[in-house]
């Protein structure tokens, strides 16, 4: 049941850890002033991130060895927990930055939406792999799982956490697209999503959000309003040049750039380490994402493949939304940069996801290393766990 670690994927093992460690250095650099201003020790945020990293690392190791196929069996429980958490946070949650997105246990803040991300990826991967047989059929194959997706999205939008909702929506699109549904159906879904958004947005629109949108596209027209964060971000990035001002030398982190250690950490990296630092970080992130997709491509098991795609998409989409925001391509929605930004729930989920991805990779490698005699074995597993019903239905 517990897989051996000898087939571990080196890239997927080392890259997230490198990114997280680098993230902690930058979090310390970006947050020490903020921490002191807020009345803590300068290492306040660093230590908390380190603690979360240790927890995340445990999750990572556990998920490396825990066979991913069991998630399919635990699906009902996972979904139930996710929905309970999301409903619970709406009822009992803590409001930070105008969004009721957090459970606070003393100093520890948990963000259920982060868990919902992974939960939904598992769910979609599971259902669509089971429905592979009639994936081309809209009403039978495509539609039913979407009911739960919409419910989860709605719960997150209610917090409101538009950023996470958008990420989940895009991850879902990515997984559904990869599952092989007809383009016609995909377009229908996207159109439906857009209509839903069009209905939802007028109710969701607040001045703050409008100003964030206008701020993204005309930051210098409204420097004191919505454009403030983006201008500060531009100033940080522009100040870095090719090689940056040097580690710890950022000026923008000294109160100009809000959330320097969370959503805008890449701006500080750009300022202190320059474009080269940015390239390295983006390179590492791209490595994880592309490696994840590569594994999905290799994985013969459709659940594993869709799970890998979902996880890779999650990292990629979050990185895109975060970097898009700090470089003024997208509106600022408060999405952290994967692995690098300060944030416990996010890091924990990412590390767990990396563990799962590693586990899928190990499975893929095992397939390759033990070609002939093990195929029946793996087929048996497939047959009994996921492929079973599919097979039965097919043979009928």
């Amino acid at each position: 049941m517990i897989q051996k670690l000898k087939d571990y994927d080196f890239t997927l093992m080392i890259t997230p850890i490198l990114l997280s460690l680098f993230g902690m250095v930058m979090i310390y650099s970006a947050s020490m002033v903020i921490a002191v201003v807020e009345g803590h020790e300068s290492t306040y945020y660093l230590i908390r991130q380190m603690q979360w990293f240790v927890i995340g690392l445990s999750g990572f190791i556990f998920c490396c060895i825990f066979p991913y196929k069991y998630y399919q069996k635990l699906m009902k429980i996972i979904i139930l927990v996710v929905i309970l958490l999301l409903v619970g946070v709406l009822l009992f949650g803590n409001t930070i930055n105008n969004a009721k997105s957090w459970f606070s246990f003393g100093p520890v803040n948990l963000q259920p939406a982060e868990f919902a991300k992974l939960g939904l990826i598992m769910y979609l991967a599971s259902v669509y792999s089971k429905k592979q047989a009639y994936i081309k059929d809209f009403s039978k194959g495509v539609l039913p799982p979407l009911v739960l997706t919409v419910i989860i999205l709605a719960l997150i939008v209610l917090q409101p956490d538009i950023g996470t909702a958008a990420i989940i929506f895009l991850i879902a699109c990515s997984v559904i697209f990869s599952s092989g549904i007809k383009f016609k159906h995909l377009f229908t879904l996207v159109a439906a999503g857009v209509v839903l958004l069009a209905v939802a947005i007028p109710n969701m629109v607040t001045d703050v959000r409008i100003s964030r949108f206008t701020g993204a596209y005309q930051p210098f027209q409204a420097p004191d309003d919505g454009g403030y964060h983006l201008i500060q971000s531009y100033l940080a990035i522009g100040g870095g040049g090719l090689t940056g001002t040097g580690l710890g030398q950022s000026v923008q982190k000294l109160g100009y750039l809000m959330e320097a250690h969370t959503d805008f950490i890449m701006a500080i990296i750009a300022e202190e380490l320059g474009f080269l630092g940015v390239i390295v970080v983006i390179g590492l992130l791209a490595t994880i994402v592309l490696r994840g997709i590569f594994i999905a491509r290799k994985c013969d098991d459709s659940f594993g493949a869709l799970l890998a795609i979902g996880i890779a998409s999650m990292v990629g989409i979050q990185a895109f939304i975060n970097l898009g925001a700090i470089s003024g391509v997208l509106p600022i929605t408060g999405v952290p940069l994967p692995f690098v930004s300060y944030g416990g729930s996010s890091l924990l989920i990412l590390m767990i996801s990396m563990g799962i991805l590693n586990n899928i990779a190990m499975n893929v490698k095992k397939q390759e290393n033990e070609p002939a005699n093990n195929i029946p074995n793996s087929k048996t597993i497939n047959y009994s766990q996921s492929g079973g019903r599919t097979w039965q239905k097919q043979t009928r």
Partner: protein
Amino acid sequence: MKRVSAVTMKKRIVTVFLFGLIIFLVIVIRLGYVQFALGDELMGKANDLWTRDIVFEPERGLILDANNEVLAENVTAPSIIVTPRQITNPQETAEVLAEILDVSVDKVFENITKNTSSVMIRPEGIKISEEQELAVRTANLEGVYLAKDSKRHYPFDEDLSHVLGFAGIDNQGLMGLELFYDEKLKGEQGSLSFYSDAKGRRLDDLADIYSSPADGLNLKTTINTKVQSIMERELDLAVSRYDPDGALAIAVNPKTGGVLGMSTRPNFHPENYQDVEADVFDRNLPIWSTYEPGSTFKIITLAAALEENAIDLMEDEYHDDGDIEVGGSHLHCWKSGGHGHQNYLEVVQNSCNPGFVNLGQMLGTEKLFTYIENFGFGRKTGIDLQGEGNGILFKQENVGPVELATTSFGQGVSVTPIQQVMAVAAAVNGGYLYEPYIADEWIDPVTEEVVDKKKPNLKQRVISSSTSEEIRFALESVVAEGTGRPAYVDGYRVGGKTGTAQKVGKDGRYMENNYIVSFIGFAPADDPEIVVYVAVDNPKNTVQFGGVVAAPIVGTIIGDSLRTMGVEPRDDGPDKEYQWPEEPKVEVPELIGLTKDELTEYMLNLSVETEGKGEYIIDQAPAAGTKVEQGAEVRIYLSENDR
């Protein structure tokens, strides 16, 4: 079916892979663009954001007179700067400061609780007095600082106030020279920029940038403080003696156009300009006011006639029977019955109106008006002060015989005092019309080098030097023998011309018994060093006649000024009509039957006391023909009805 689906899935996954690759590329390109393409522009903005400037105010340039006497300087007067963040008990601090500065507690409280790094309490907390400074120091309040600051000080108090103007609370020029030359006087602010965080705290590991303030240049003017003081003194005397509506005096160097002195009544103290009405400091009368010049304008007519060789002063004669018919209407001479038979020198000496009408007619409209315009009337002289008037001339196409005639003796045109001064200066200096100016040199306050020196601006040659010489001769004889005798200065050859101008009231008609009396004089007549013009608006308790009121003032100003300027006394000039010390007695003229208006140009050096009210003189004492001492009192009795 499953296989097909799996193949589709692999294809889709490759698509996602490519899509992901593109996304990362787009982001890298965008970040590179922000970092490099926007970089420089952004750095400028970021620098502005990061740096905090401590401003170092430059020292405002001094204003000096021609002999380096200080006319405007700076004296220390600290300002209060409050750092709200450092104040622990705003209410208490506000109360203490309000007490010291004599402002409401609310105002101070509101200021010192503002959410900024530093505030000032405007305007009470700026440039505070010594007592207030001491009180603030004694109170020793947390977060309250005294910043070195200075305010403008004018050592000569009210003297030259309209010309100097004044500077405001931020040392910005608001009026006069202070305004006109504010750019050069104010200098450049310096600053100490240090990097700081968003809360304004200083970042020590980034180097400070210091740019030193550049002090304003010192302005050396053409003003001669001694001449100015004499003018101020004489105007003060005139004000106390005549209680006029206003008065003004100008002294100009005719050889350059440089202004030696300029004064206005009512005046004000530049350091307390708020104490007077804006009309008082707004109106620098010598350049602002426009009015009919009266007889002083005859100099222009005379200059035109002489330059055009229309007459010979000595040879040609004119018979004045007290009346001249122009275009069907009769213009009277100010002396009823006329001056009789005179040569043109006597016409000038007597300021005979019909004689000048005759000159104007000889010249014709076109020529006379060309001369008037050439002498600078109808347009600004270009003096380096704000608020100069244009004056008003008849439009040539509207000039009929009557307009030509009245213009010839200074009625129906409207001019500014400075225009008259510059025109007369041109008439007597050999024919050179200069632009008047006050700012002479700009001096670097540190090296004391002259950075910029004004060259006299010759606008135009208006008459020949021989014509100019004739005018000097004619005007000298006006002072020696004619209407200008009270301006005579022993030892200096003074030339000049009286003027008595009626004022136009609000209804557009001439006002009754309300004249601007003036005299324009110059000396020495052989080589003029100074042209002085004095006008007194509606003097009371006197005959409103330029020869009586203004001429002696000009005489005193010229005499005293030339002595302080070190101009050699002359002894080759024409003598006054009598010989010193045997002062001849004056024969009291027949005044009964004259109107009061006629009297204004008649009385020479007798002082007049009036009794009763009205236009007509019905009696006089002493009687006509009585010989009296010069300056003796003649009492006249007035009535509404003629005899």
